[in-house]
């Protein structure tokens, strides 16, 4: 009896009681489903049914057939470009708000995050309304006698703009949160020691904020790589990405096994990307002293 009471009071027990329910939920409804598609990826589909006929045909298809590889490559290029574009644009913006925002910091940052909550369909519609063939931009150009800008309609450029539109809030937020904890006085130290402003940025600001920047990059890369809604509506004929053909497997064709395999490949590519980024993070080199949290 006594030992039970002692157990109840131990911090480990309390910790477990509080964290296990959510953890179990995640294991059941997040981890297990992912494991299940791993399993299904080795099966095959026949007449819209999954048959447990273990094989690696699906993977062979994806990894050897040119069409699939092309799509993977296109999505990779798109994801990297969009991530870089977001990075270049978000950094100065986040810097401004973090350093000079004062008491308006919270509002300024929330304003960049707010559009994110309106949902993907609305946002794609909104962008299409501006950039599409009968969108505001082109109608304005036509009204004033100019030619519509071809490259913005139904192209990868339009897709890219759309994806930047969707995911840049994540990048801004990640870098902003990192800069909040950055001691800007260190820049003064650098100046006094002979560093010109750009040098100071490269030597001091960038490394000390790399962890936040890396998180931002990953948070933009992953949904961009898996995108299907945006390329569907903005990408045009040649704009289909990996996400589109993945989605296709769960639509009319009902080829769930192949779709599962594609999903696994998607997951692995994202995982590899995360691993690469992870390797670049050296805690000491980012100024981590073990004091926070």
């Amino acid at each position, binding site marked *: 009896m006594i030992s039970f009471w002692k157990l109840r009071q131990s911090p480990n027990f309390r910790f477990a009681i509080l964290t296990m329910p959510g953890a179990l939920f995640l294991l059941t409804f997040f981890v297990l489903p992912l494991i299940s598609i791993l399993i299904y990826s080795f099966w095959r589909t026949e007449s819209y049914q999954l048959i447990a006929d273990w094989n690696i045909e699906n993977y062979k298809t994806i990894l050897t057939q040119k069409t699939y590889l092309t799509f993977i490559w296109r999505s990779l290029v798109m994801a990297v470009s969009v991530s870089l574009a977001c990075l270049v644009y978000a950094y100065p913006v986040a810097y401004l708000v973090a350093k000079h925002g004062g008491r308006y910091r919270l509002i300024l940052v929330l304003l960049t995050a707010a559009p994110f909550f309106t949902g993907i369909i609305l946002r794609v519609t909104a962008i299409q309304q501006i950039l599409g063939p009968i969108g505001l931009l082109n109608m304005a150009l036509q009204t004033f006698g100019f030619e519509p800008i071809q490259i913005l309609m139904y192209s990868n450029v339009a897709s890219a703009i759309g994806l930047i539109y969707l995911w840049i809030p994540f990048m801004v937020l990640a870098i902003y949160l990192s800069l909040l904890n950055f*001691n800007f*006085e260190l820049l*003064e*130290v*650098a*100046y006094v*020691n*002979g560093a*010109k402003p750009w040098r100071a940025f490269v030597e001091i600001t960038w490394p000390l904020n790399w962890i936040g920047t890396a998180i931002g990059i990953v948070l933009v890369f992953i949904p961009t790589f898996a995108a299907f809604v945006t390329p569907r509506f903005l990408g045009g004929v040649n704009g289909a990405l990996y996400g589109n053909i993945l989605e296709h497997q769960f639509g009319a064709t009902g080829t769930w096994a192949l779709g599962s395999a594609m999903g696994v490949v998607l997951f692995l590519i994202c995982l590899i990307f995360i691993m690469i980024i992870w390797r670049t993070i050296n805690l000491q080199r980012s100024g981590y002293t073990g004091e926070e949290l």
Partner: protein
Amino acid sequence: MTEPALKLEQVEKTFDKVRAVDKVSLEVDKGEFFSLLGPSGSGKTTLLRIIAGLETPGDGNVHIGGHDVTRLPPYARGIGMVFQDFLLFPHKIVSENITFPLKMQGLPPSKQEEQLNWVLSLVHMEGYEDRYPHQLSGGQKQRVALARGLVSRPDILLLDEPLANLDLELRKEMEVEMRRFQAELEIPFIYVTHNQEEALTLSTRMAVMNYGKFEQVGAKLDLYNNPNTRFVASFLGSPNHINGQIKRVEDNIANLDWKGFDLRIPAPAHANSGDDVDYYLKHERIHIQSPQDSGSVKGENRLEGTLRDIIFKGQHSDYFVVLKNGQELVVSAATEIPSLKIGHSVEVYWPPEAGDAYLTEGKVN
């Protein structure tokens, strides 16, 4: 006649209508350890930042090593600086922190290593090259910060209250070390502090600053023994403060009425009967004895009182004497004077010129 290492001409800086630095001029030579002493808000840190290039003066010129640097950004001034919170780069190891200024100058790695080794042995931090700042103690961080400031042998070294975050023993140790560095290297140190003991220990010359102006500049003993203004007199040495009215002025001596006591003080300039006067008397300038002994001389002030308390300070003791007029004086004297016992009568005496007297001009600080 060589150019002074640092020259300030009528430097002025205003923030939001407040004159942080008010037409300050100064010359500092290579061999000097110069302190800027003053209370917080006096403008000393602002002045230091102007010298560093972190603030642009509203008016005036700054010359370092003979060159006019007033319009130059900090990275073009060739100075060294030590900051109050050390401000070491947390993501760089000790050697990288120290060689940072050399790296910015584009020195070849072999040269960098040479300078690094030299400065590490100077501050006694050999062997710590690969540590990160968070692995160092406060004193060690301080040495690394100092090393970083000195490694490029700059024209001047600026120090912004560098010892404020160290505990007493470490501070005493570092004070001695810093005097040694400055003398050895012949680099002028410009040292900002609000701690007058520190300034008096370290510097050769100093300035007392208040409300953006230099109250007095000169050799430290000069400021200590012959304060020009009321502020300097009250700021250095934490003296006894006696306030009263002049009854009579004769030759250069005035008679001051101090709550019933008649004191002889040196007459301040333009003093007249009835003027309000502040008289500052440093602890060590007063003599204390038991009433039986007689050591005082004619013309000196002699008062009787009761010894309320003795506080042991190590090399001396502070004696707290309550006088017959109800006021209290603190006297610094040798420890263990057998004839002085708490609760018993004592006698205090001093010559008029042992203290400094100034007209009370309204309420100035």
